[in-house]
């Protein structure tokens, strides 16, 4: 199966998925930032009591918060600073749905949910790149690149 067909046919669960960092809506931005930094992940998923996603607090949310009033890191909640752009796909949906979600919502992270709508994982642009590299190593992974590769990290 070619790459194109794989993207259309294989489910989201075949993507390299990251653990979703789940927090409640009353979590402080500082706590969210500490969690994101510790896990080297670009967002936390804000969920309700049943584990269903309410939105995401992302690095972009953080930048906007710091630019406006860094003092609120400790005095407000992540629910006040949710990224207005966020996306969800079910883990049984085709990989193509992740691409569509990133395109239509202009986001880098996509929340993956189970059949009950609960957030179970996170994927996005890096997951897609790793998926393509895995399916297409003869062309992607042998390309020369400039500078020296750094230690593995998610995001930049």
């Amino acid at each position, binding site marked *: 199966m070619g790459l194109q067909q794989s993207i259309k046919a294989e489910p989201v669960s075949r993507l390299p998925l990251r653990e979703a960092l789940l927090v409640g809506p009353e979590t402080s931005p500082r706590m969210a930032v*500490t969690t994101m930094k510790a896990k080297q992940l670009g967002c936390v998923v804000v969920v309700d009591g049943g584990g269903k996603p309410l939105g995401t607090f992302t690095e972009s949310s953080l930048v906007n918060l710091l630019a*406006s009033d860094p003092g609120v890191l400790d005095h407000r909640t992540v629910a006040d600073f949710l990224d207005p752009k966020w996306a969800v796909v079910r883990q049984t949906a085709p990989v193509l749905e992740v691409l569509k979600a990133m395109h239509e919502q*202009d986001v*880098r992270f996509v929340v993956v949910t189970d059949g009950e709508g609960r957030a179970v994982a996170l994927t996005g642009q890096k997951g897609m790149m790793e998926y393509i*590299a895995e399916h*297409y190593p003869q062309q*992607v992974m042998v*390309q020369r*690149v400039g500078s020296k590769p750094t230690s*593995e990290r998610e995001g930049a």
Partner: protein
Amino acid sequence: MTSNPSEGGFQDPLENYDPPEYSDALEKALAEEPVSSIRSWPVSTVGPGVTAGEAVRVMSEGDAACLLVVEDGELVGTFSVRDVLNSVSEDFESSREKPLREVMTKSPTFVYDSDASGAALSVMAVTGFRHVPVLDSDETVRGIINPQRVTDFLLKHIGGV
């Protein structure tokens, strides 16, 4: 025109060349379309002496996730939302006055605008960087590859979307 090499004539070195075969249009595009076709231009650039606080303001106002740090026309670093998270967020009141040269990602991995698009995806997959600077053969900044451009590229070549 051909002639017999045994008679001292010309033999086309590509005579027995088999062009690469691709399963689909996307695989062909990854291998054959240059980075220049997916780069974003213009880009937001700043100098290394700009403070982190000023850079954060520029990023917020410009909805930019990554600034290229350029000095004397040379790319010396990048300052992205990940650098904000890692280097300045938790102690922003004091770190906002730091110059970018202290908090940026130095010597970032880049691609040349003549590289195949797959090179940009390679950098993203291997290093985890979501933003990849694009240089020309003179090492001049010619753009940046960002997640949005990559997504658009992939969807375009998957077709029917």
